[in-house]
């Protein structure tokens, strides 16, 4: 393929130097650290993140304007948080001029479409200051997470400390130390259907994208992509926010990222094509061709 990792100017393995951030972070605490720095440095006025929701492990998009609010949003929850829903609100009710947002690759696509075609996003296009994308193979509806954790893994959601997808398994860690692993074969059928036409793994359209794949445990792989991405990343490095290692000196490195990206994209590309001949002489809609 060749462009499965998108454009980038820099790729490293990194982790935050802030102990507090690392404590509950999914991997290297990149998102929380970068937003906290950008907030301090005045690069953003606030950031849309997946904050705590009404039910255990259910995220709710919030506009975080303090370090405390950012900290409350640490960790990956593996179910949908419609972060883009706040993008206009952030510039209105919250009055932000420089907005940060974190999201999945598809949400980064939504942001860039919104800047080029701001049909209903008045005054938003010029206010996106830092869009951080998270690597994403697939996502789950909240009810799927309930199904997986409570039914398949047999754990109460309230008692879960961390969830993780890695090494070919879905991992559930509880507060009391139980570890349950489910093979991905089990989780696949519960995935959000819309993910099966998704052609982006490492958030190619983000300013900075990050995820655990490619880096050792406790570290994250980071792609710096755009001008604003470079700007904030270099300032954060200068301020000592991150420890970094060259990506070609860590295991498993970019090779694994590339492999997974290729797998995802070719599988979903096939799905897009199959959808077009789904019925008898009739197909399903292909958003990559026309509305």
């Amino acid at each position, binding site marked *: 393929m060749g462009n499965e990792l998108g454009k980038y100017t820099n790729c490293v393995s990194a982790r935050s130097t802030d102990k507090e951030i690392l404590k509950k972070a999914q991997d290297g605490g990149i998102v929380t650290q970068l937003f906290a720095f950008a907030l301090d440095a005045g690069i953003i006025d606030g950031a849309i993140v997946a904050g705590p929701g009404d039910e255990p492990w259910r995220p709710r998009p919030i506009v975080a304007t303090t370090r405390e609010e950012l900290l409350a949003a640490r960790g990956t929850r593996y*179910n949908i948080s419609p972060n883009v829903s706040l993008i206009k609100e952030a510039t209105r009710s919250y009055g932000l001029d420089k907005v940060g947002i974190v999201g999945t690759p598809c*949400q980064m696509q939504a942001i860039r479409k919104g800047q080029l075609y701001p049909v209903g996003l*008045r005054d938003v296009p010029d206010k996106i200051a830092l869009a951080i994308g998270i690597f994403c193979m697939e996502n789950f509806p909240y009810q799927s997470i309930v199904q997986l954790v409570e039914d398949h893994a047999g754990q109460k959601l309230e008692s879960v400390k961390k969830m993780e997808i890695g090494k070919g398994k879905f991992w559930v860690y509880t507060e009391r130390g139980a570890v349950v692993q489910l093979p991905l074969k089990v989780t696949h059928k519960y995935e959000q259907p819309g993910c099966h036409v998704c052609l982006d793994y490492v958030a190619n359209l983000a300013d900075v994208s990050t995820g655990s794949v490619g880096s050792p445990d406790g570290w994250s792989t980071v792609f710096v992509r755009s001008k604003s991405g470079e700007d904030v990343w270099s300032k954060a490095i200068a301020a000592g926010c991150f420890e970094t290692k060259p990506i070609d000196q860590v295991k498993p490195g970019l090779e694994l990222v590339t492999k997974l990206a290729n797998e995802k994209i070719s599988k979903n590309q096939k799905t897009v094509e199959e959808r077009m001949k789904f019925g008898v002489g009739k197909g399903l809609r292909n958003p990559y061709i026309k*509305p």
Partner: protein
Amino acid sequence: MKQQIPAATPQKPVEQPKEEVKSKEAKPVAEKITAGHIHLSGCTGCEVAIADNYAGLLTLLDRYVDWVYDLTLADVRHVPKMDVAMVEGSVCIQDKLSVEEIKETREKAKIVVALGGCACYGNITRFARGGQTNQPQHESFLPIGDIIKVDVYIPGCAPTPQMIRNVCVMAYLLLKGNPDQQALAKKYLTPLMQLAERGTEACGCDLMIEVVNQGLCMGCGSCAAACPVRAITHEYGKPNVNREMCIKCGACYAQCPRSFFNFDVINEYQGILDAITGALQ
């Protein structure tokens, strides 16, 4: 792969000064496109949205567009020939003048843009049923696409200043740009032309029918952000439309990345946005 983004200034050599900076100022008027605003049954919100480009609008008028028709701004009584007609509002079919004017617009304009929800989809005027002073018999309002062929849609209520700005710059590049610029403009405008071909009905239900029912929704939240009347919330990651509130403006569906997503344009967002803002500096 870095695609070259064509600069938004015309390539034809300008006569006198050689220095690049100056040649920008000295653009001959002949290089401009002509455009106008046709006001049918709309609330003037679309026109205000054009004006809300502030300095950008002045630059646009200065360098790229001659504004030849506008009931509010230009002292011209009849729709003249023009390159781009931006039509605001739906057509009241009981109002002879409106019907004539939209037909005349089609004859006189190379490109007809339906500006805003009313022109594209009827929007709030879909709920009109007459009875208003002083023309109570004016009760049937149609999107302009039900009367004439429309080339480009800009949905939304009101449409956004930035969307109007982008379309104006692209229309200019399409008509006056060099071949690269024309190709870019064509790519950019294609989905907006496809929306025009798609029809004259819009509703929050489109999110269900064309996105969720089609297995395409991934819960990004763009639709809720786009809705001018906050009719959309997300329940467990999927849009939920309060259909009583929906005014049928079409913004949610057009904004959804799973209505259309043209990689060839959106992957180049950085260069294109720089070119557009650069053109209006």
